[in-house]
């Protein structure tokens, strides 16, 4: 067997589900838009969990907000009959992510869990990933941020603080996933249990609109939720194969 054949076999085995149990996750989130009230608690939770800086009023006006998850608001109709739709928008952890191919230094890459990882230390700040991302969920550190006291006392020690010139984005709270995997290993389990790990936004959602889990496990809550007939991907036509599934809002027949 030639070297290339060996390599190919190894590679195929490695990609085969079940070969590496401990890596074989496909983290997925479903967001039920019927349940979403647009309260913004997920935004705040994310801000606190991931050491996301507060940019302040001036920078916000210049369009430099930092929100790994944001609530997009879409208004429908003219004034008396107005309807407001919310879509929480976060990194979709695409399986065919445009941002991963463009980074010249591989600062963003796909890890074994199907997460779209961002290596802050490797980032040189070309910002091309943000251009390539159709969901506009990558945020750039335009300068070194400061946390006014006492906010600097609540920085999460599990998450690095990013310096200026670095791109950042939602990680599905990778620090929590790592911790859950470690716990599973310590307990002598090979797999993380369903519901054992939740990103901050999922944890905080008051209406339980968000569900997080492993879609490789057909019994998991998220797999069941994905089978909902209302399930769809945002911008499905750009073929990015996202890991975030939205459940369509069911329209009530309201006569005006």
């Amino acid at each position, binding site marked *: 067997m030639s070297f290339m054949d060996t390599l190919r076999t190894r590679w195929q085995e490695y990609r085969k589900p079940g070969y590496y149990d401990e890596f074989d996750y496909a983290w997925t989130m479903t967001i039920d838009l019927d349940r979403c009230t647009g309260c913004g608690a997920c935004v705040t939770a994310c801000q606190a969990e991931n050491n996301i800086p507060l940019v302040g009023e001036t*920078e916000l006006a*210049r*369009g*430099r*907000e930092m929100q790994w998850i*944001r609530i*997009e*608001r*879409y208004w429908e109709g003219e004034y008396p009959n107005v309807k407001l739709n919310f*879509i929480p*928008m976060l990194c979709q952890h695409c399986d065919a992510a*445009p941002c991963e*191919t*463009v*980074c*010249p*230094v*591989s600062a963003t890459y796909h890890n074994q869990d199907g997460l779209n990882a961002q290596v802050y230390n*490797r*980032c*040189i*700040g*070309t*910002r*091309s990933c*943000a*251009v*390539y991302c*159709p*969901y*506009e969920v990558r*945020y*750039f*550190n*335009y*300068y*070194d941020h400061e946390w006014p006291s006492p906010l600097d006392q609540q920085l999460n020690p599990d998450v690095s603080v990013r*310096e*200026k*010139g*670095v*791109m950042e984005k939602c990680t599905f709270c990778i620090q929590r996933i790592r911790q859950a995997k470690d716990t599973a290993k310590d307990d002598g389990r090979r797999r993380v249990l369903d519901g054992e790990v939740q990103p901050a936004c999922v944890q905080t959602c008051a209406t339980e609109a968000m569900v997080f889990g492993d879609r490789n496990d057909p019994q998991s809550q998220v797999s069941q939720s994905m089978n909902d007939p209302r399930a769809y991907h*945002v*911008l499905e036509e*750009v073929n990015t194969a996202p890991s975030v599934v939205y459940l369509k809002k069911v329209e009530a027949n309201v006569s005006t």
Partner: protein
Amino acid sequence: MSQREIAYSEVNDDIVRSLVVTGRNYYITLAVSILVTFACFFGPWFYQIQYGIGAAGMNHPTVWGTYLASFIFWIGLSHSGTLLSAVLHLTNSEWRKAMYRSAEAMTLFSVMVAATMVMVHVGRPWFVHWAVPYPNQMEMWPNFRSPLMFDVMAITTYMTGSIIFIYMGTIPDFAAVRDRTTGWRHHMYVLLSLGWRGTDTEWHRLHWAYTFLAVLIVPLAVSVHSIVSWDFALSIVPALHQTIFAPYFVVGAIYSGTAGIVTVMFVLRKYMKFEHLITKLHFDNLGKLLLVMSLLWTYINAVELFTGWYSESSEEYEALGFRLFGFYGPLYWEMILFCAVAPLLLISKRFRTSFVPMLILSIAINIGMYTERFLIVATSLPRQYLPDAWGMYYPSLVEILIMIGSFGMFTTLFLIFVKIFPSVSLYEVKETLPEPQPKLRTQSESGAS
């Protein structure tokens, strides 16, 4: 040739004079351009490194700005020099000989400025070498799928190729100047001329190697700007994700590069007193080339709009509508005026052979081409798929200063160049002249004399 009869010695004298005799105007211009470079380029850049990219006007949807526009502009400007020179060399165009040296220098310096613009553009310029594949103990390699990484490779290759091309073509001239200068200049040219003696073997090898390099550099130059266009075209941003982008950028590059050559030629002719070397013939030919390029460019622009319209997707409509009639709409029509309508004047030979109108037109074309690059960045990114993330982008003062400063840097480099390199090729201009009658001399002697 339509120029008056010039003797070999006159060519030598003219060009050695341009190297040795330095007027007050030169020093003033040099001082001003160095000042502009430091005040407008390095100063603001230093501030930006300290503060962060936030010093520029980029924001959430529009993460690319004028730095990238300037980068494409300078890469584009670099195009005509070496490419044109190589193509004309391969097609045996006599008129190339008086102008190619300065055109190639233009290439070299614009590539340098473009490379610096990349440094200005990235968030952490001190790590920019990570985009270069070099062996390291961490075994970290750049991402070979990335168009930006292709860019790094293409530009460094093109820069290396251009340096070798211009240097090799200048060796006989360095030798000629070496034999006519004294003092420190003599020592410098002794080093630069690499012991050129002007024997037949040397000439033979030079011509062979030069033609070889010319053949090599043509596809290289085409590839460079195609790859620059892939930075945009490989994204899925509406109005950027277009297959026409590679030829669009190559044509645009040659177009703005040729206009740049016209500008540089005018300045050289006027201030280095090369009136009898750079003639109406050169402007006429360059004008024809400009006309062809402008028609091609107009065609590609029409195709770009057409494919956008034909796609019948709301994103494309929105992006194109924003480009044509949005906030930067007037700039779009200014670009059409400067790059598609005004160059139609070149149909008239009288226009092509008048120097000042050609200068004005060439500057107008380059303003239009800069606008084009700016619009590609500034009108596509604010209008992408999700309307909630739409935004607007205005260049900040730092960006505008750095843009001005990049011109200062280019001028500085060029001014230093004209005092070190013979800015018109001595030996090739002589090849176009009638041989001196009384004493028959071979080409090789004249080159090294």
